């Protein structure tokens, strides 16, 4: 049980590529990794957590129709209560969120003892079919990595957008509509020419001749 989604706790088989595009069930992007050597102890911890989450968060499970079917079939982890929880080291860190690590940054992945399936998952490029299968996972509103701001007034306001654009384009700072601060050196240094400022704070730029095919 090398990987488990920290959101819905779906378990992925060793070497699975499914999670490369996020958890197919909940869209979560964080997975905890348990090397083989720690499987026994991890299983006990995970079992505890699975039980806790399932019990304390039934609406989430019920609201996710895919989880109820897929997770059960895809999860090879024994979930019986007979797991030897008493034999696991009572590490408080292991039970905390600090244990959760990004798969990409997991130092264990580069462990020379990794098996071929792990190496394959790390090295291979996911195919188009595999991408399509997981390209439209159910959205969870509490997952910031998956949350797309809606195009409504309830979305981050125009002020936020303006602030974001100001961070990106230091050449013109929009204080408010009709009030601008200009960084002349930045404007001079830009290869592309700003030819139009939109009401919503966007810019229209003309790319330099050198970027065109006929240049």
């Amino acid at each position, binding site marked *: 049980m090398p990987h488990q989604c920290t959101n819905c706790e779906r378990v992925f088989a060793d070497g699975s590529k499914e999670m490369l595009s996020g958890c197919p069930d909940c869209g979560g992007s964080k997975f905890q990794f348990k090397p083989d050597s720690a499987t026994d102890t991890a299983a006990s911890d995970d079992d505890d957590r699975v039980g806790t989450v399932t019990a304390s968060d039934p609406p989430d499970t019920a609201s996710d129709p895919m989880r109820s079917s897929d997770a059960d079939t895809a999860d090879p982890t024994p979930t019986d209560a007979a797991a030897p929880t008493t034999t696991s080291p009572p590490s408080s860190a292991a039970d905390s969120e600090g244990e959760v690590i990004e798969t990409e940054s997991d130092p264990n992945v580069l462990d020379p003892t990794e098996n071929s399936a792990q190496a394959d998952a790390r090295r291979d490029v996911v195919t188009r079919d595999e991408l399509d299968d997981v390209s439209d996972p159910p959205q969870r509103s509490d997952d910031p990595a998956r949350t797309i701001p809606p195009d409504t007034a309830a979305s981050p306001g125009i002020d936020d957008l303006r602030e974001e654009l100001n961070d990106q384009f230091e*050449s*013109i700072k929009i204080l408010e*509509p*009709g*009030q*601008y*601060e*200009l*960084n*002349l*050196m930045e*404007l*001079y*240094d*830009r*290869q592309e*020419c*700003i*030819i*139009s*400022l939109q009401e919503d704070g966007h810019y229209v730029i003309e790319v330099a001749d*050198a970027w065109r095919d006929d240049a």
Partner: protein
Amino acid sequence: MGLLTGLRDSITRVTDRLFSASDPKRIGIYGPPNAGKTTLANRVARDWTGDAVGPESHVPHETRRARRKENVEIERNGSTVTIDIVDTPGVTTKVDYKEFLEHDIDEEDAVRRSREATEGVAEAMHWLREDVDGVIYVLDSTEDPFTQVNTMLIGIIESQDLPVLIFANKTDLNGSNVKRIGDAFPQHETVPLSALEGDNMDEVYDKIAEYFG
């Protein structure tokens, strides 16, 4: 990247000059808002072509898009110098629509003008980087020339190795102080004039022919 880009720009500029020596030089008229750039451009264009370049106004940022008058032939001492005049929007570091409200412009129009003026400054800075062969820098001689914009723009022009003439405009007004401009930029020649009244235009054309011919 910046170094390569700069090198490419320099090479482009040099080759352009080598292979188009007979083409008209493109002279950008730069300066802060309300220095009299459009008045000067119109004066030059009218004197030598009979046409105007654009509307003049006491309202700042009246020129919000660069305007070009091509093939202006200036005759000096029996020879002809042909230039393209580019009248640019006044360069500034702040544009505020409230500035327009003082000139009986309603708020919606003021906001629009402000946005267009900002676009104009961006365009002017881009032209300075890409599209001019020389610069006429126009200053209102009644105003303090020691400003961030003036220092920065003159510095950019110098870094481009562009020929530049500084025109101390509005000498017809009380409070005109040409010497203050000369002292501010002693490394460049300062020519006093009144574009509005046509004062000292002979020297203006002499210098244009000398610097950009």
